[in-house]
């Protein structure tokens, strides 16, 4: 060990000591800082740096040089300090000079940190808040010191002055006093300039636009960020910093041997802190959670030659949402997005992400979402604060996203949950790997809003879901043609991004609904008058084309045959003309079943004869409805009031004029149509009050009577949730599909503010099926048989109604299934007989298509829903009593017409020839 008081021996490089190099780096940083001051604007730090990055390569170079020389200065200063401390001899330094040297360390950190703050980007703004708060917490002088250094607002002007003037001048004075020279050594200056200049040509510090959720401080403070993550007492970190400087200062007063031990301890601490910095860089991610990996956040240095050739940048630099956006330099003239989403207004990145601050294509597109709007990422795009933040949480809870009812019913049917358990809210994204859940994963999990859209183009049978896109991404002819060209060009490697963009629109056509709703209950196809066939029509196998007026082919192997379309379709109404945004995107509440989210009813448009339509005054519209109306700009006079649902939700396209006359506006076209009240007969009769509109006005419903679902452990299935093939396959075999009048049953209707009531409604066989459930969780393989009918609004409404006999004398309507139902009179007594058409199923002895036995009923699990039931025996008898009359009297006859109004008195007036069923 050298004797106390010995002259320190400095490590020499060929360009001078580490101190010389540090001084040179400091000087380069100071000079480039002056150059950078020209394009930099502290009032808009982020904006001015972003403009530099896009349009001023020379300024980028100066910024890089400023940054890298500053980093070099910090590293070299610390290395120089350590180099100096390796040998004793602090006492040789004058007391005052030593104090100022000790103070230089925190001052250098302050200059570095304030430089970081001047970025004004997302990281810097958070860092400014933290340092302001941490300084404020220092007892006594803290608040004043914080205001003195960083100001009392979150602005950068004061920080700029402290960085560029105060701290820089003070440190420079200390350096001059310490090194006893004003200018750095020329060799050191040139060496540092060459080294940092070379790096500056290829590596530019990033700028964090705030889209990336990872927030990190400068690299040398990542250790501090890590420490602060662990301690609820941030002041401890401040104290530790001050203590380190104090200990350094105290070294001069220590005995040399003790000083050496303290220095060793300081070195260990510094190494430990360095380790923490590395941990912060490589092991931390969003919300400072553990996320090992290379640092990728937007604030990190970005590689790329600063003077690489670049597209011509317009003057001024394109700005979107108040920030420079490089995307618009290349993607000019994009049309089709509509007013609200014009690229000139919102840019590209607010939806698509990517790096907006580079003109290098690869870098710009590196973290871009070609298809934004998928629910998983919608919060960063469509749902960001300034845009549709309120909608995304609603969508996340919508039954169109959760499929809650389908998940619950499927588990109940396969015996994995009791009806009570299955009645609780569930979410398709959270299902597991039980037999029921894998069944869903393979057969159903594609039709929900959370399904990820990965293919460009309109949604079709092959691509479903896609979050906001599922409904709002609308391709017109120009966008389709542009896409076709783009796809063709991609094959030849000459693809240029299309400029005709699909619209983000409220004008949602039926096609958007079709891809999911043409399945299961098939309401989308039934509405348009198409019934799916189970077999391929024989004609399709021949050489001739199927007549398009009779057949429709979907997805190449689904054949549909013409049936009566819904009257509303004939009159030009789209799905969105009846269904509200709440029904689709949800009301923000979690619902276990679809019925909780549904709102509209026939009587919201067709007032019961003689009664006015329930309305809302225009002034009472909710903000969303007002906004929709404002953006719709329908022609014609504004309405003084609007229709509303039973739960009070506005129907913005049901306009009611001052005279109380209602009209419906077709949302996509603005065309108005008068709304008629119901027929008198709908409201005047006794005995039919419980009937829903659909029980009479439904023309037909698709029925699939039986199916068999089995699990083949050797097969290969496709899991729609993970998008991967899996071992073991669920295979479904269904019986023939028929288009027939629906069965009737009873539904319990619970509306807010009204007593529950019962309604006769339309039903179809939901699941008359046998499932071969594989072995799982210790349960051996077994078969489950279910006979469940499902409530279905078939969407085949007609103005004309089904005949009286089609209910009162029809075995399908009553739930017995197809067959011969006849009323036989023997002498003075009559009785009903039923001969089923379908053979009995061995599982329960009932005909294959039956819901209930003839003049019997079933309890327990009878439906996919818990609020419905088949007719009771008493109800069947009452229906059949009328059926007995109808077996002799024409339904248009006077007695039968009269009976609609008052059946009891009509019965009392019956002729002695009438024979009633035995027991009535």
């Amino acid at each position, binding site marked *: 060990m050298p004797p106390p008081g010995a002259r320190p021996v400095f490590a020499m490089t060929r360009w001078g000591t580490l101190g010389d190099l540090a001084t040179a780096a400091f000087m380069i940083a100071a000079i480039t800082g002056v150059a950078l001051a020209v394009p930099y604007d502290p009032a808009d730090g982020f904006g001015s740096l972003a403009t530099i990055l896009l349009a001023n390569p020379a300024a980028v170079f100066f910024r890089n040089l400023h940054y890298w020389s500053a980093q070099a200065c910090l590293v070299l200063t610390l290395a120089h300090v350590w180099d100096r401390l390796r040998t004793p001899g602090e006492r040789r330094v004058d007391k005052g000079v030593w104090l100022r040297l000790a103070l230089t360390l925190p001052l250098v950190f302050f200059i570095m940190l304030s430089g970081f703050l001047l970025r004004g980007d997302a990281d810097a*703004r*958070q860092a400014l*808040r*933290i340092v*302001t*708060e*941490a300084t404020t917490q220092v007892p006594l002088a803290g*608040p*004043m010191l914080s*205001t*003195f250094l960083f*100001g*009392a*607002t979150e602005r950068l002007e004061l920080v700029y002055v402290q960085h560029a003037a105060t701290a820089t001048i003070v440190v420079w004075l200390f350096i001059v006093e310490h090194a006893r020279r004003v200018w750095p050594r020329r060799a050191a200056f040139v060496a540092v300039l060459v080294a940092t200049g070379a790096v500056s040509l290829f590596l530019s510090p990033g700028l964090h636009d*705030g889209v990336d*959720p*990872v*927030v990190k401080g400068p690299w040398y403070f990542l250790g501090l*960020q890590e420490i*602060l*993550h*662990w*301690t*609820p007492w*941030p002041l401890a970190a401040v104290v530790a910093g001050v203590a380190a400087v104090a200990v350094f200062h105290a070294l001069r007063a220590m005995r040399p041997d003790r000083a050496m031990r303290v220095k060793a301890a300081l070195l260990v601490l510094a190494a430990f802190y360095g380790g923490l910095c590395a941990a912060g860089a490589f092991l931390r991610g*969003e*919300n*400072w*959670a553990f996320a090992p990996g290379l640092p990728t956040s937007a604030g990190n240095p970005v590689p790329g030659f600063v003077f690489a050739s670049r597209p011509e940048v317009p003057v001024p630099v394109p700005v979107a949402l108040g920030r420079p956006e490089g995307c618009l330099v290349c993607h000019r003239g994009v049309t089709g997005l509509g007013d609200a989403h014009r690229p000139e207004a919102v840019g590209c990145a607010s939806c698509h992400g990517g790096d907006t601050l580079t003109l290098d294509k690869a870098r710009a597109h590196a973290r871009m979402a070609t298809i934004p709007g998928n629910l998983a990422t919608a*919060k960063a795009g469509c749902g960001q*604060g300034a845009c549709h*933040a*309120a*909608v*995304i*949480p*609603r969508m996340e809870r919508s039954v169109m996203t959760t499929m809650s009812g389908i998940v619950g019913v499927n588990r109940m049917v396969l015996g994995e949950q009791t009806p009570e358990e299955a009645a609780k809210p569930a979410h398709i994204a959270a299902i597991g790997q039980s037999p029921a859940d894998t069944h869903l994963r393979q057969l159903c999990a594609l039709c929900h809003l959370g399904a990820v859209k990965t293919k460009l183009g309109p949604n079709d049978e092959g691509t479903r879901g896609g979050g906001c896109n599922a409904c709002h991404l609308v391709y017109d002819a120009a966008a389709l043609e542009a896409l076709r060209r783009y796809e063709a060009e991609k094959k030849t490697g000459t693809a240029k991004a299309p400029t005709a963009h699909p619209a983000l629109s409220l004008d949602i056509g039926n096609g958007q609904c079709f891809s999911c709703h043409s399945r299961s209950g098939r309401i989308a196809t039934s509405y348009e008058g198409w019934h799916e066939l189970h077999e391929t029509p024989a004609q399709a196998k021949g050489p001739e084309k199927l007549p398009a007026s009779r057949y429709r082919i979907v997805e190449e192997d689904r054949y549909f045959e013409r049936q009566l379309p819904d009257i509303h379709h004939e009159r030009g109404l789209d799905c969105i003309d009846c269904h509200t945004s709440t029904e689709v995107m949800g*009301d*923000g*509440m979690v619902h276990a079943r679809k019925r909780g989210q549904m709102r509209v009813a026939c009587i919201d448009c067709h007032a019961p004869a003689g009664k006015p339509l329930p309305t809302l005054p225009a002034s009472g519209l*909710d*903000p*969303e409805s007002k*906004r929709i109306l404002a953006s719709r700009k329908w022609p014609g006079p504004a309405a003084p009031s609007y229709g509303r649902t039973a739960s009070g939700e506005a129907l913005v396209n049901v306009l009611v004029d001052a005279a109380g006359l209602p009209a419906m506006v077709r949302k996509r076209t603005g065309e108005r149509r008068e709304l008629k009240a119901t027929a008198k007969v709908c409201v005047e009769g006794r005995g039919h009050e419980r009937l829903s509109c659909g029980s009479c006005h439904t023309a037909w419903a698709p029925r699939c009577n039986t199916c068999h679902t089995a699990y083949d452990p050797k097969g290969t299935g496709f899991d729609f949730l993970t998008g991967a093939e899996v071992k073991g396959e669920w295979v479904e075999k269904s019986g023939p599909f028929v288009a027939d009048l629906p069965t009737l049953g009873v539904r319990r209707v619970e509306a807010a503010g009204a007593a529950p009531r019962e309604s006769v409604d339309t039903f179809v066989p939901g699941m008359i099926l046998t499932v071969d459930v594989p072995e799982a969780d210790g349960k051996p393989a077994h078969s489950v048989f279910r006979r469940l009918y499902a409530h279905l609004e078939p969407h085949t409404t007609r103005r004309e109604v089904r005949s009286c006999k089609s209910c009162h004398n029809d075995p399908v309507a009553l739930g017995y299934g197809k067959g011969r139902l006849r009323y036989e009179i023997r002498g003075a007594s009559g009785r009903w007989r039923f001969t089923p058409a379908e053979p009995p199923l061995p599982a329960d002895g009932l005909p294959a298509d039956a819901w209930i036995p003839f003049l019997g009923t079933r309890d327990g699990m009878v439906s996919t829903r818990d609020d419905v039931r088949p007719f009771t025996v008493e109800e069947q008898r009452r229906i059949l009593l009328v059926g007995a009359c109808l077996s002799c009297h024409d339904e248009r006859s006077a007695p039968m017409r009269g009976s609609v109004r008052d059946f009891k008195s009509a019965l009392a007036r019956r002729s002695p020839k009438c024979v009633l069923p035995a027991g009535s």
Partner: protein
Amino acid sequence: MGLELPHPASRRHFFRQALAYVAGVPLAVLLVDMLRRVRAQQVAPPVAIPPDVAAGLSVVEGAIVHREGDGAIRAYSARCTHLGCRIDRVAGDEVICPCHGSRFRADGSVVNGPATRPLEPMRVERDPATGGWIARASP
């Protein structure tokens, strides 16, 4: 330990220094007063909450807003009580500070640190102009 005044020149030196300190004190007092007044002028700006703010938790500028099922609104300052970072994202039924990972519940209470204090509640008033609300920092 007393002051050593070995010769007259040092005494003069002492008085000069003392004078400098005496002159410095009022300047320091003035500086502190200036800074104090600058701070006093700063109040967090009010936050306008739109009428259609989402149900559940959301971030609206500098406020964490919680809208309950019945429409009731509560608001908290989005300033993290650990070290003042702006909380700008919601994660389900909680908000998380991006800087050091403190988590808070919808009622402002802490789920996990480093923060130990609940989020600062804001006063919420109806805003007749927009149909929404205005949230102000509690005094």
